[in-house]
């Protein structure tokens, strides 16, 4: 009985210690950033592997989510004879919620897991410690560009996702189901506000990008340097990022769109 209690306590302390390590790690990375000219090529390289290579999955998912929204929305709205509100529905759902959230989930699965595995393998093969031997700070050389790349790429991906989704919704709603396209865009424009909706969605995606990139690089940096350790760190990245994104989304939505 006491053994179990002790194990529970140990686990709790381990979680708190891990949180503390991740905070110190983040502080270290952010402090290590200001070297814009030398670090820029590294950042571009990471933007390519984190952002550009995630573009395909983001575009395809956005297209299909927009198309599904149009189909579902049409079925429900046509019961009330208000199919023309479909543009408004698709745009608000995508801009406020699905754009940032689904992009962040895809981002965690596609780019976050790759980051963790890459950094974890660097640690396991002792590339990180040999960098330290050579007097190169791995936080600055390896971690910081990846963190910033995730932070920058995520809002860009979310915006592209949203636009592709709205276009996919138009394909189904206007071209296929025959909603008048003036009503599609007109209702959208009269109900979507640039500051309230678009910018708030953008803020969401910036927050999600930061959290996902932070979790990914920290899990890689902190993993056990074995093959089992890398695999469990990769799993943790996806699980923690998804949970953090969904939880934060609720909090952000309550602050941004809740009426109180």
């Amino acid at each position: 009985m006491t053994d179990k209690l002790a194990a529970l306590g140990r686990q709790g302390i381990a979680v708190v210690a891990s949180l503390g390590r991740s905070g110190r790690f983040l502080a270290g990375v952010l402090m290590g950033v200001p070297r814009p000219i030398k670090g820029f090529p590294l950042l571009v390289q990471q933007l390519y592997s984190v952002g550009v290579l995630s573009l395909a999955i983001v575009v395809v998912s956005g297209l299909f989510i927009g198309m599904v929204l149009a189909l579902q929305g049409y079925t429900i709205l046509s019961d009330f004879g208000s199919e023309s509100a479909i543009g408004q529905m698709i745009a608000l759902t995508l801009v406020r919620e699905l754009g940032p959230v689904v992009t962040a989930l895809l981002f965690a699965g596609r780019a976050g897991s790759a980051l963790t595995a890459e950094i974890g393998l660097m640690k396991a093969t002792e590339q990180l410690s040999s960098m330290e031997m050579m007097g190169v700070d791995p936080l600055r050389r390896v971690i910081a560009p990846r963190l910033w790349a995730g932070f920058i790429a995520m809002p860009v991906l979310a915006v592209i996702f949203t636009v592709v989704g709205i276009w996919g919704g138009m394909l189904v709603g206007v071209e296929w189901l025959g909603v008048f396209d003036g009503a599609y865009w007109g209702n959208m424009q009269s109900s979507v506000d640039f500051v309230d909706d678009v910018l708030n969605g953008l803020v969401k995606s910036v927050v999600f990008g930061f959290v996902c990139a932070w979790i990914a690089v920290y899990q890689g940096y902190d993993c056990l340097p074995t093959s089992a350790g890398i695999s469990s760190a990769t799993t943790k990245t996806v699980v923690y990022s998804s949970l953090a994104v969904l939880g934060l989304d609720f909090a952000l939505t309550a602050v941004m769109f809740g009426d109180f």
Partner: protein
Amino acid sequence: MGNRSIEVIVGLFMIAGLAALLFLALQVSGLSPQATSDRYTLYANFNDSGGLAPRSRVAMAGVTIGTIESVTLDKETFQARVKMAIDADVDNIPADSAAVIRTSGLLGDQYIDVSVGGDMESLQPGDTFYSTQSAMNLERLISNFASGR
């Protein structure tokens, strides 16, 4: 792949992001570069403003000609005072026109419909509509009907 082409591709990626944001601003949220300066203000007093809210539309013959800026209570007359921003190119609204609150569809949003009068003079910026018609209150209508008045 060479360093150079990666830079170009990342540049294109960022440009695509900016273009998408621009699309969201212009096409989706209808943010137009035209400032409030090419609009002018009109007022209308209503006994009951119903569900009228800022950013609702002002229409004439079904065409949107402006938006509602604010709905406030006039403490002296206990009426709702509605401030409207009308497109500057619609500058010939006859002075005896009426502002009527209507509902788009059965369950839709409420908006102000300007029903055109016959006066030769037109409303000037800052003017108030002389005649107005308040929102139709379905419950009051039914209770009036039920009590036979």
